[in-house]
C-alpha cells in the first residue's frame, strides 16, 4: 500500500516535471524541471532496490551534467520568442504524430510482459544482495567489451571537443617552456658599470 503510494507519487511527479521541461517558457526553468524529473526517477530506482542506479543518476546527471547545462544556458543568449515562431504552423503535424505515438505506446504497454502487473516483475532481493557489487560483477566480466568500447567513446568525445574548439591565436601569449629552461644568465643579466 505504502509502496504503491510512493510509486504513484514519484511516477506522477516525474511525468508532471517532464511536461514542465517541454512547456516552460524560460529555458532555465526547463533545466530545473529536468533536475526534479531526475530526482523522481532516482526515487523510482530506489523503490526497485536499484540504489546504485538511483545514486548514480543524482550524482552524475544532476551533479555534473545538469550543472553544466545550466552554465551553458546562462552563457547563451536565447531568444525564446524567436524559437516559438512557427509553433502554430507545425502544431497540426506535430499533434497528429504525437497522438499516433500515444496510441501506440498505450497499446504496447497493455500487451505482453508490461501488462502482467509490471511491478510484479521487479523482484525484491532483500538486503543480502549488494546492488553495487552485483553490477560491478557483470560490468567487469560479462559486459567487459561494452565497458571498453564506452571508454574509447569517451576518449573520442574528448578528442573531438578539443579538436573543434582549440585554435592557436596569434595574439595570445603562450609560455615557451623549452625557451624558459634553456635561458642563460647572459640573456637576462646585463652588467652595468656604475
Amino acid at each position, binding site marked *: 500500500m505504502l509502496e504503491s503510494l510512493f510509486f504513484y507519487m514519484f511516477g506522477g511527479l516525474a511525468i508532471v516535471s517532464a511536461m514542465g521541461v517541454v512547456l516552460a517558457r524560460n529555458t532555465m526553468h526547463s533545466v530545473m524541471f529536468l533536475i526534479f524529473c531526475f530526482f523522481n526517477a532516482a526515487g523510482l530506482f530506489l523503490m526497485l532496490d536499484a540504489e546504485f542506479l538511483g545514486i548514480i543518476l543524482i550524482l552524475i546527471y544532476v551533479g555534473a551534467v545538469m550543472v553544466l547545462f545550466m552554465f551553458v544556458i546562462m552563457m547563451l543568449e536565447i531568444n525564446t520568442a524567436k524559437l516559438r515562431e512557427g509553433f502554430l504552423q507545425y502544431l497540426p503535424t506535430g499533434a497528429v504524430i504525437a497522438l499516433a505515438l500515444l496510441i501506440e505506446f498505450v497499446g*504496447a504497454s497493455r500487451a*505482453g510482459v508490461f501488462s502482467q502487473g509490471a511491478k510484479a516483475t521487479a523482484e525484491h532481493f532483500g538486503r543480502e*544482495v549488494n546492488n553495487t557489487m552485483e553490477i560491478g*560483477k557483470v560490468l567487469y566480466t560479462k559486459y567487459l567489451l561494452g565497458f571498453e568500447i564506452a571508454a*574509447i567513446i569517451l576518449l573520442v568525445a574528448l*578528442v573531438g571537443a578539443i579538436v573543434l574548439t582549440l585554435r*592557436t591565436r596569434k595574439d595570445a601569449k603562450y609560455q615557451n617552456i623549452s625557451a624558459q629552461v634553456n635561458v642563460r644568465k647572459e640573456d637576462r643579466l646585463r652588467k652595468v658599470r656604475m
Partner: protein
Amino acid sequence: MANVTFPFPFPEHLIALLPEMVVAVMAMFLLLFDLFIPKERKVLTAWLATATAIVAGVASLQVMGAGTMVAFYGMFVLDPFAVFSKVLICAGTALGIILSIDYMKDEANVGEYYVLMLFAMLGMMLMVSANNFITMYLGLELMALSVYVLVGYQRDTLRSSEAALKYFILGSLSSGMLLYGVTFLYGVSGSFDFKLIGDALADGGGSARAATLLGLVFVVAGLAFKVSMAPFHMWTPDAYEGAPTPITAFMSVAPKVAGFVIFIRILVDALPAVQQEAEMILIWMAVLTMAIGNLAAIAQRNIKRMLAYSTIGHVGFVMLGLIAGTSEGYAGILVYLSIYLFMTMGAFAIIILMRREGIQGELLDDFAGLSRARPGYALAMGLLLFSLAGIPFLGGFWAKYAVFIAAVQAGHVYLVLYALLFSAVGAFYYIRVVKYIYFDEARVAFNFNDSAVMQATVVVMTLVIVMLGLYPDPLMGLCASAVAGLI
C-alpha cells in the same frame, strides 16, 4: 546475477578481436605520435593510419576461423559475413584517408583527423561483429561521434559547422529512437542478444506483439536514419555538402556498409517473427527512398549535393535486398555495397582533384570542358558515372542486377519494375554530368594539382569498376559465401 563465479573465466577466442585491438592501439599511438612530429611531416601520420586500416583488413582475413567464432562471453561474433564487411570497411577507410592527404594538408590539427577516422572505423568494425544490442549501439555511437566531428572539421567555414550541428542533433535523436526501440525488445524478451530475442519472440510473440512491433518500428527508424533511408534522409544533403569532400566519400560508403550489415543481422536473428511487418515497412520506405533520392538529385547544381541524393537513391536500391529477405538478397547487398565503394571513391577522387585556386570545383558547371583539358580524367569520370547509372557491362550494372534478381525471385516484381523506372530517372542526372564534361565549353582554366596518389586512386578505382563489369563472378561468389552461414 548470482551465478557469476570468480575468478571469471578468461574471455575465449580473444584472437577474434585482433584487428580491433590493432586499430584501437594504433589510433591511440598516433594521437600521441602526431604531437612529436613537425607540421611539414604530418603526412607520416596519414600513411601510418592508412597502413593501420590495411593491416586491420588483412588481420580480419587472417583471424577468420572455419566457422563462427564468439568472443567476450557472446558479446562479439566473427563469421565470414562480419569478415567480409570488415574488409570493405577497412578498404573504405584506407581510401578515405588517402583521398584526404592532399585535401587536408593545410588544415589545423590534421593529425587528430586521421585518428578520428580510425576510431570511426573501429566503431564500424565492432558494429558489424555485434550480435547483441549493447555492442551494436556502442559501436554505432563510436562511429557516429567520430563522424560528427569529422564533418565539422573545417570549422572556419560556416557550412561545415552547420552540417556538423545538423547531423549531430538529428543523429542524437535517431540514437534515442533506436535505444527506445531496444528497450521495448528487451522488455518483451528479457535479453539484448539477437538470437535470444529471436527465440523469445518466436514462441511467445503473441501476447507481447504490440510491444514487439513498437520496438521493431523504433529500431528500424533509428537504423534507417544511419543509412539515410527516406523519410529519415533529411540530414544527408546538408551533411554531405558541408563535410570535407574526403569525409563525404568516406561517409557515403563505410557507415552504409556497417548500417546495412547490422540491419541484416537484426532482421535475420532478432526479428524473424515479425518479418512480414518489417517487410511491409521496408517496402514503403524503399518506394519513398528511390523516388526522393533520384528525383531530388535532378535539381541539384552542386555535385556533392547531387551525389548525396544519389546515395539516397542507391540506398533505395540496396533495400530491395533487405526486402527480398533471402540469402541471394543479402549477398546482393554485399555485392552492391562493394561495387558502390569503388565507384563512389573514384568519383570523389576526381571531385577532390577539381579543387583549385579560388574554386571548390563542386558545381556542375566547373566540370564543363573537362574532356578537352584532361581527357584521361574525363574518361574516368565518364566511366564511373555510367557505372553509377547502372549502364550494362560496368560494375554498377551488376550491383543493381544482383539485388533486382533477388527481389524478383522473392516475388516483388512490381517493386523491381518501380526500381527500374527510377534507375532510368537516375541515369539522366549522371549522364547530364557527362554532357557537361564532353560537350560544354570550359569556363574556367583547369589547373590540376596532380598528386601521384590521387591519380593512382582514380586509375585503380576505374579499372576495378571496368574489370568487375566484365567479370563479376568472383565478387558474386565471394559475397554468396560470406552470407552462407547467416540464415
